[in-house]
């Protein structure tokens, strides 16, 4: 505080100022105080009643808006979560149903194929049995022919060897005897 005073005495030419260093001229104090009180009280009232409530309202509104928006966002998120869950459930159901249908189809197809296979097998067996029967018949016929040919041949051989034809009965017995062995 002393320094500015020194500066003032150092730089100010004499007679420039009416009195002391301006901040210490006590005759100005009353005017300054009166106006300071007026200005400060006026500003305080203006701030308290007008300016600050306006700013506070704006900040409060914004905070409220932000809180509301966050709450809305939370609600929407719950909704979307529910939608996702429903979608996944539907997807799982559809998959299960598809699985069931596939299984049923496979089974019915398998049953049909089995039935067709059995029919075919039966037909084939029948044909086989028929063929076997005809083979047996042919064989029997052939065997009968063999006996007749053998009897003829035997008769012819014996006739050639002994000069007289054997009786039919003897030839038949001999052939039957030979065939038995």
């Amino acid at each position, binding site marked *: 505080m002393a320094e500015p005073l020194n500066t003032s005495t150092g730089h100010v*030419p004499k007679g420039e*100022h009416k009195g002391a260093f301006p901040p210490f001229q006590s*005759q100005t*104090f009353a005017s300054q*105080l*009166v106006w300071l*009180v007026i200005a400060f009280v006026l*500003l305080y009232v203006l701030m308290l009643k007008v300016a*600050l409530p306006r700013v506070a309202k704006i900040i409060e509104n914004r905070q409220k808006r932000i809180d509301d928006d966050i709450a809305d966002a939370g609600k929407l998120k719950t909704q979307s979560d529910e939608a996702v869950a429903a979608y996944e459930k539907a997807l799982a159901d559809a998959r299960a149903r598809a699985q069931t249908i596939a299984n049923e189809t496979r089974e019915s197809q398998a049953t049909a194929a089995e039935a067709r296979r059995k029919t075919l097998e039966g037909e084939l067996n029948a044909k086989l049995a028929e063929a076997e029967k005809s083979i047996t018949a042919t064989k029997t016929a052939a065997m009968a022919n063999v006996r007749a040919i053998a009897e003829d041949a035997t008769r012819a051989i014996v006739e050639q060897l002994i000069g007289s034809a054997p009786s039919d009965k003897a030839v038949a017995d001999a052939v039957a005897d030979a065939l038995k062995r």
Partner: protein
Amino acid sequence: MATDPIHQFQIVNLFPIAKIGNTEIAFTNSAAFMLTAVVAITAFLVIGTARRSLVPSRLQSAAELSYEFVAGTVRGTAGAEGMKFFPFVFTLFMFILTVNMIGLIPYTFTVTSHIIVTAALAITVFLTVLIYGLWRHGLHFFNLFVPKGVPIYILPLIVFIEVLSFISRPISHSVRLFANMLAGHITLKVFAGFIVLMGGSLGAIGWAGGVLPFAMIVILTALETLVAFLQAYVFAILTCIYLNDAIHPGH
């Protein structure tokens, strides 16, 4: 006259208002700048908040910033209960900041460069603390001077120091602001005076050499802008700290 660094602090009576006894009450240049500050602050906040938009304009953003800056300071220093003094601290901060900033404009007057103004503000804070503290806590307010856990034999000394520091608060509170504003403005004016002095005495060379003090003024103006803000902030935060003592006197 132009180079006199003290002239800028002169109080000029613009017109007289009243006369009480031998004391003349006048409308002065100081009063004009005080009222200018009041109008400027009110206009800043009212025009800034006129649109009340959700997404603020620049001016609204600045108004909200000043509000939240001071509110944050008060809440951080004096707690939630201190918010009842928020309008007071806000008024102090904005008033001091605005008159400091206006004072940086050439040819203006700096209201806070007068000790009577800063002293009046500091005493207002001091009395607010004292009266609120006594009203709120009664005689328990004086616990402020009796720290807990101090050995009984040095307690008288501690209490003496605490009382002394409490009483000297308004002095340091007011002189800090006053001296900062006064010294800063004198320095600016002295450097500005050098330019005129050099130009006047050395002619062309002097005017060329005047670049140096001019550069100094540019740098000092930046510094003084910082000081203008910082002193307003310091005044406000000290007010909060003192108010915190009134609200919570138990150390």
